[in-house]
């Protein structure tokens, strides 16, 4: 049959490449990603990079100012605190804790919220009614207050901080994922999957979930930013780790007491928190823009 002759298989456009190019062409993605990478490297290589033990006290070395001051000491780039601990080393280990909490909390919140959001959006009916009500009730509580109460109940420690953030912020994921799942469910590819006999759970996890993934990456990044702030707040009010542990929030809280003699004790960790949170937000927003055409297709 002449008309059914073979159609050319190529040349095919390389859409994958163009997606990468679109990401790299977005300044917020590049800038946010670069700053995040910087902190990630600092955190991962903290044991190698830190010039001193972050918790070692030396009362002979109190209040050394940062390198740009004239009273600076060599070997203490960012100076020392009231107990003679090296600030740079503490900031590096602080990055480790901040990023660990951010990733773990965002993953936990994302897992819980995504599973419930997918089920609510896809199954609809009473499942959706129950989950949606739960989200509404949940969101009626003020978040920071709730997290403080939770940590107070569970006891201080990193695990409580992570659980507290997850327990509070799963609703963010749930609402967005539910709406997106409902939109995906209307797509023709879902109808085709039904007409070839694929089961509902196969369709939900193997067909719809991959299409929700770009959105999840965006939510995850933004949630990491939130987690960094919440962890800092909880450390600040002394609900995270024992205070000799170098979290940024603890450093800010400690530094506040000596803000007149040694303002760098407070300013440096604040700058770290701000830089990391801004980077995560920029990355998240940039990813949202860059992935949007893909997600809408």
């Amino acid at each position, binding site marked *: 049959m002449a008309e059914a002759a073979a159609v050319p298989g190529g040349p095919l456009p390389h859409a994958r490449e163009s997606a990468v190019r679109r990401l790299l062409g977005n300044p917020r993605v590049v800038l946010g990603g670069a700053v995040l990478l910087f902190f990630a490297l600092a955190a991962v290589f903290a044991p190698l990079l830190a010039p001193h033990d972050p918790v070692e006290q030396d009362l002979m070395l109190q209040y050394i100012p940062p390198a740009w001051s004239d009273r600076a000491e060599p070997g203490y780039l960012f100076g020392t605190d009231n107990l003679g601990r090296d600030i740079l080393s503490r900031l590096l280990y602080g990055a480790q804790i901040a990023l660990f909490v951010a990733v773990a909390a965002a993953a936990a919140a994302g897992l819980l919220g995504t599973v419930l959001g997918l089920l609510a959006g896809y199954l609809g009916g009473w499942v959706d009614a129950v989950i949606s009500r739960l989200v509404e009730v949940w969101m009626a509580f003020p978040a920071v207050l709730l997290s403080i109460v939770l940590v107070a109940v569970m006891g201080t420690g990193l695990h409580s901080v992570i659980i507290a953030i997850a327990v509070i912020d799963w609703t963010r994921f749930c609402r967005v994922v539910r709406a997106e799942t409902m939109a995906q469910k209307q*797509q*023709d590819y879902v109808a085709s999957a039904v*007409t*070839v006999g694929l089961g509902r759970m196969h369709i939900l996890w193997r067909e719809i979930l991959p299409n929700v993934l770009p959105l999840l990456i965006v939510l995850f990044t933004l949630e990491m930013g939130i987690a960094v702030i919440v962890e800092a707040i909880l450390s600040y009010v002394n609900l995270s780790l024992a205070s000799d542990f170098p979290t940024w929030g603890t450093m800010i809280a400690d530094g506040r007491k000596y803000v007149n003699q040694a303002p760098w004790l407070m300013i440096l960790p604040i700058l770290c928190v701000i830089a990391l949170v801004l980077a995560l937000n920029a990355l998240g927003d940039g990813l949202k823009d860059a992935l949007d055409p893909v997600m809408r297709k």
Partner: protein
Amino acid sequence: MTAPQITPGTPPDGPILSVRNLHLAIAGRRRRTPILRNVSLDIAPGEVHGLVGESGAGKTMIGKVILGIQPSRAVVTGGSVRFGGRDITHLPERERRRLMGRGLGLIPQDPMTSLNPAGRIGGQIADVLRLHLGMDRAAARARALELLNDVHIREPERVLRRYPHELSGGMRQRVLIAIAFACRPKLIVADEPTTALDVTVQRQVLALIKEMQAQDGASILFVTHDLGVVAKTCDRVTVLHGGRVLEAGDTRAIVEAPQHDYTKALMAATPRHDRPGDLLQPVPEALTARLNEEALAYDAGPDTTSASHA
């Protein structure tokens, strides 16, 4: 019940699909809006059956009822759909799923949106094979490759690894045709499978569907609004308007000597290869108005829900 008594052991020459006196309405807030009115049609094994009519005639809805994917507001208010002698009008989801793919298949209207944008072509074909034929990964991949060859896709190994957005509309429709035929269903509903494509690609895809059907022997319900396509493609044809069957029979007979005024009007509105100089006449408004009145009169009639003979 006016349906012919068919027991599960259907004779081989009985229809593979038999729609009998089907009534369907969309449930609204106050009332039900009738969409299908006493529709009957039979499709024999290996038959390509055309379903023609203007937009809104209910062609897609018939296809959806057969596949069991009508919207939840669409209620079958009478009649039945039998497949291989078995009543499938109200099949529970599990049994319906077992029928899909192996018994019934679909070639969708819009190839651009009917493949999963997040999955590779190979995986999407393999999923169906593994589900219904219990193939392992390697066997499914090998079979997917064969299927892509069957639908004349060049460099099938490369296409297997592609994502849908990397393929043209015609290529995607070929992939969807491969998926529809993958598990050798007995009946495939093809709902305007070429309207979303370029004119040049339309002819190729049409030819491909015919070729695959001839090889495989599946029956096809071919939905279109183009009698010209029906004349080239279908063995028999049902003419639909306002959810009513106006005329049905052998394609040759109907194309050469249409009985119903509407079929005649549709013929006059269809470009013909044999008479390219003809001026095309749109379907007269007076005729459409008359048909709409007839449909309403039918709804108001004494036996709207009881399955009456036309």
